[in-house]
């Protein structure tokens, strides 16, 4: 996930350029000089400037100061790099949210959330002894809170809330 400043800076500058040109194409409001295109163009131009400055490493000095500060406050074992695959593991929660968006209407809240809790808990290194009961109880309690206290119905699907 760690990108070089060149890559992130150029991405920002490119996004700014796109926003600028897209903004300039927006239809004006008849009879007015300033319309919906002004703001995206200003913001886009700002992004182009910032992106280019980042590419050239301007402002890097401040990050070095902040990083040195973090290092001086941390304990030694925190600074050892983690295995690279842990970084990819971080994509699991958003993937599970995407799963919720796709499956909750048909499967229902309780089964969908149970799958999500189980996988997430295991990813955090839980033993099945903890993860399985948690996956059964937590969705149930959350459903109870939303249904009874806040009166928000959650999708029922194949396994609706029992009462």
């Amino acid at each position, binding site marked *: 996930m760690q990108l070089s400043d060149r890559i*992130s800076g150029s991405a920002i500058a490119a996004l700014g350029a796109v926003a600028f040109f897209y903004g300039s194409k927006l239809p004006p409001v008849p009879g007015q000089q300033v319309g919906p295109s002004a703001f995206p163009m200003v913001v886009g131009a700002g992004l182009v400037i910032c992106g280019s400055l980042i590419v050239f490493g301007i*402002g890097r000095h*401040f990050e070095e100061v902040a990083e040195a500060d973090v290092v001086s406050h941390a304990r030694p074992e925190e600074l050892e790099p983690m295995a690279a695959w842990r970084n990819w593991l971080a994509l699991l929660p958003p993937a*599970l949210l995407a799963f919720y968006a796709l499956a909750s209407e048909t499967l229902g809240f309780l089964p969908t959330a149970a799958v999500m809790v189980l996988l997430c808990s295991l990813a*955090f290194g839980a033993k099945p002894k903890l993860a399985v009961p948690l996956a059964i109880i937590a969705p149930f309690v959350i459903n109870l809170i939303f249904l009874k206290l*806040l009166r928000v119905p959650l999708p029922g699907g194949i396994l609706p809330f029992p009462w």
Partner: protein
Amino acid sequence: MDTVIKAFGLVFQFDVMIAVVASAFYGLTVGALPGLSATMATALLVPVTFYLSPIAAIATIITASAMAIFSGDIPGCLLRIPGTPASAAYTDEAYAMTRKGQAETALGICLWFSALGGIAGTLSLMLIAPLLAEMALSFSTYENFWLAMLGLMCSTLVARSSPIKAIAAMLLGLLITCVGIDNPGGVPRFTFGSTDLLGGIEVIPALVGVFALAEVMRSLTERDPPKIENRKLGSILKGQWKLTKEYPKQQTRGNIVGIIIGVLPGAGADMAAWVSYAMAKRFSKTPEKFGTGHPEGLIEAGASNNASLASGWVPALLFGIPGDTITAIAIGVLYMKGLNPGPTLFTSQAESMYALYIIFILGNIIMIPFGIIMIRLASKVVGAPRSAVMPVIMIFCAVGAFATAGNNLFAVWCVAFFGVFGFVMEKNGYPVAAMVLGIVMGTMVEQNFVTSLIKSDGSVLPFFDRPVSSVLAAMTFAALLWPVFSWTRDRLRGRGRVVAA
């Protein structure tokens, strides 16, 4: 007087009291868990407040955020891991006291002076806000534009990262608010033919994604925090009165600095704690004792971060400009509940404003007994396994966003997207708080900007030639140029702190 009595009537109701007690325990728990910030606690509460009465909704936000800022000190004291970023400034000091066997005094200082600071902040809110409201009534779109810009620039200054990256993050936030048809021309912008994007990107799913889901993601890449020792703690409040009398100057200075930083748009509790700790050390008679478990800095910074919390509501209530990320969320709740921020709020909704003050005072008073309970339970709560807490938070991210967006699954996609986006930004040194302030304020900035330009026939001169707006403009540019100045100064002093560290 009539309004005050009405306000008491609004606050002392069954649902509000339940909301205060429940959110107090919720805030204390989330704040005490390492890695879960006060902002996250507040962001996850928003979906719940959606279904409460306006006063109960505001009460939950106020109580939960105040409690979370205090209880962030608990793991700081006991484990040297700040529970929230606002405690990071004095974590070392508090932990040094614990190592000297004074854990109860350290925790007591955090609790006692947090509560006092919170009350001082509330008093300042009661005094300053109505005064500024008079002035704010004469503001036109030019002043509002500069005030919003000043808030955005301050939010980039306080980020402990490259100011250019912070400005880029802030601009990204502004660009995100361009999506949708809510713009001066009413034309669809950046919607790419999607009907979901026509309504724009909602603030709450973005907040939940950036502050809650991204935290879950980040903690997957980090090690488990160390286990907490089960230690017997003595009386928490013993000796606090003596310390109050011993260090009145530090406490007052902490309160005042906290209040000033809170009122500044864009700067909040984290900043207040850092500045106050540094000031305590600078003006101390015994600066060499700092870092060895000396109460002075702890008192000043602990009072400061809680004081800033209440005064942070001043720009939020008057202009809809957040003092920090927590008030950014609170503004969303205010709009949701029909209490649209603005100077007229103090006349048209006076009893709601008094109710808000009462809740602040009440929250800071109950902080003391509830805080003591939490400190007693700390070894259990702080030690709660991440593998049980994080999955539940993830489910709340999904359901909460889904519920606030009128049961629309697009919100869940937004949370997932902003989770990834926030995670990648944070990893690469782009401060997400600046982006969030951009998202919260974008529509307002654009409206004021475009309306001002229409009024002036496209000329930028009126932005600078009105007295108040010229001062605000000068402050904004000073904030923009400040990093250049400080960089040059470091250069002249010979390469600055990097080499020294």
